[in-house]
């Protein structure tokens, strides 16, 4: 518990840094006033807007005003949607979250058994097939796989909808697209981690005790092999929630990635800042989860340190 609290305290400076970077980066990209007003606007109109947005204040005052609002959950209004920016971002969050989790589930279902199997059958035909397909999976561009899946499963056979969101059926194709790509990488990771563990002395001890090979592999080896994999999985999940622009675009999936790119193009500063903030918090949270899982899996890491 103390460890948990101290990790949360450590998060605060990180968030401050992020707010700092986000705030100034957006300011560097250009004048928001010229974007918000039509080209025919007079200088007086520009000046009035600048004044009302507080853009004439010294930059550190602007930052502090901004931070005071942010702490209260106010990231400002999106001028494209005329809604609070944070609402627009949070509206997209469930879609991103669902897609990320379902892709991770698919990836895990494929990668864990495949990784274990190719490790215990090392240098056999099965291993060759598995490592071969994971190279293929990694090399295959996401948009291509997505389009192929749409062409075959949605257009040709009409099993799943072509694009959009709302039902579980809508979730299937984008999840497979993302899930298989992650599975490809995870399989290789699990395989090599497993191979290392299987060669260790405690596995020989386990065998010398007369344990069944399934227990040796699934109990003694797997738990050790998963330790490095967990970190990668948590980071992947964070990246997925943060948005996978290409897949979201191919399937018109209303996720964070799409929103963020649109906001950047439109210089919708409030949304960019809110989205970046939320993504940063999610990355921090998933790191924290990875850390906790890591500690659960490996008793050698103590909570006190």
């Amino acid at each position: 518990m103390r460890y948990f609290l101290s990790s949360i305290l450590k998060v605060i400076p990180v968030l401050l840094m992020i707010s700092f970077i986000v705030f100034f980066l957006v300011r560097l990209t250009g004048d928001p006033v010229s974007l918000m007003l039509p080209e025919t606007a007079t200088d007086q109109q520009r000046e009035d807007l600048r004044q009302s947005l507080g853009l004439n204040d010294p930059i550190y005052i602007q930052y502090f005003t901004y931070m005071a609002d942010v702490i209260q959950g106010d990231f400002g209004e999106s001028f494209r949607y005329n809604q609070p920016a944070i609402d627009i971002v949070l509206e997209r969050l469930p879609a991103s979250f669902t897609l990320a989790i379902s892709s991770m589930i698919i990836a895990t279902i494929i990668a864990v058994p495949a990784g274990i199997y190719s490790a215990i059958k090392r240098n056999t035909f099965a291993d060759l097939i598995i490592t071969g397909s994971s190279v293929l999976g990694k090399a295959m561009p996401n948009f291509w796989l997505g389009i192929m899946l749409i062409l075959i499963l949605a257009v040709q056979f009409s099993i799943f909808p072509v694009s959009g969101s709302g039902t579980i059926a809508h979730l299937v194709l984008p999840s497979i697209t993302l899930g298989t790509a992650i599975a490809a990488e995870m399989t290789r990771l699990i395989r090599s981690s497993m191979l290392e563990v299987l060669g260790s002395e405690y596995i020989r001890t386990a065998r010398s005790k007369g344990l069944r090979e399934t227990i040796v592999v699934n109990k003694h080896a797997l738990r050790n092999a998963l330790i490095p994999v967990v970190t990668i999985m948590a980071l992947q999940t964070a990246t997925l929630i943060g948005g996978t622009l290409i897949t979201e675009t191919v399937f018109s999936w209303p996720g964070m990635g799409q929103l963020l790119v649109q906001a950047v193009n439109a210089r919708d500063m409030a949304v960019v800042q809110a989205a970046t903030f939320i993504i940063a918090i999610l990355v921090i949270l998933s790191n924290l989860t990875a850390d906790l899982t890591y500690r659960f899996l490996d008793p050698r890491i103590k909570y006190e340190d």
Partner: protein
Amino acid sequence: MTEPLLDIKNLRIRFRSDEGTVKPVNGVSFQVNEGETVAVVGESGCGKSLTSLSILGLVPSPGEVFEGEIRLQGKDLTKLKKNQMRKLRGNEISMIFQEPMTSLNPVFTIGNQMTEVIKLHQQLDKKESINKVVEMLDLVGIPEPERVVRQFPHQLSGGMRQRVMIAMALSCNPKLLIADEPTTALDVTIQAQILNLMKKLKDELNTGVILITHDLGVVAEVADRVVVMYGGEVVEEAHVNEIFDNPVHPYTRGLLSSVPKMTGSVEELGAIQGSVPTPSQMPKGCKFHPRCPIATDLCKDEHPNLEETLPNHFKRCFHMEGGSIYEQHKRETTT
């Protein structure tokens, strides 16, 4: 004479690869009786560890036993099915490994790892097997066994972990215990404790022990009989006193003279010239001849057989009176 507990006959192990076949164990035979400690001695790479792993059927892939017999109370282990072999492991034959720091699984508690083997072989329920674990830990001299049961390996010292390994290996009262350099990784003071412990337990449980080591001090301490291995074969075998008082094979003599003694001058500490040949570059003839001080042309061409020169004293050397020739050679070179 009663049947030996373990009878290894002409054991040969090969590893096949694209570069060819190597035979790191090539015709090893020896016996272990009940309640007897047989030390298997030799330099690294002589095939002693591989021989012991083959008794458990755990020769690492792609290695395989391709000839010979390993009989445990008359039953040939090399002919057993995987399933039958598994039932013997940890039950009738158990093994202690040389790396106490890494031989226990870091992510499970001592209790978990020990009850596993007890539950497997002795049909005890959870509570009974934990009691058994506590009893075994107590037997090997671990203080506060109830607490250690809940601890992880990293919370114990090397000596304690090795005690845990011994407790685990003995928890199903094996007929045969294989100890592969059980004290190599430990401090000298702990070594003595562990050896005494093994000796005591062996006497109490009447277990046959194969002690694999290159430490002749350990051999003198605990062994009844000694098997000296070189280049994948047995080169000398005799009672422990015979080996120390009257070693015949030049290799055994070399090993003995490389042990520092309390008496005599320090300059006399001998070393065997050269190094152990790798299995793929085994010399023709007697495998020891390139390093042997008394090798003759015969040794270069012909491969000597293991012969009983004195009662219960076997050696693999053409020079039957190897001892005297060796002495003579030594006198000649020193004068």
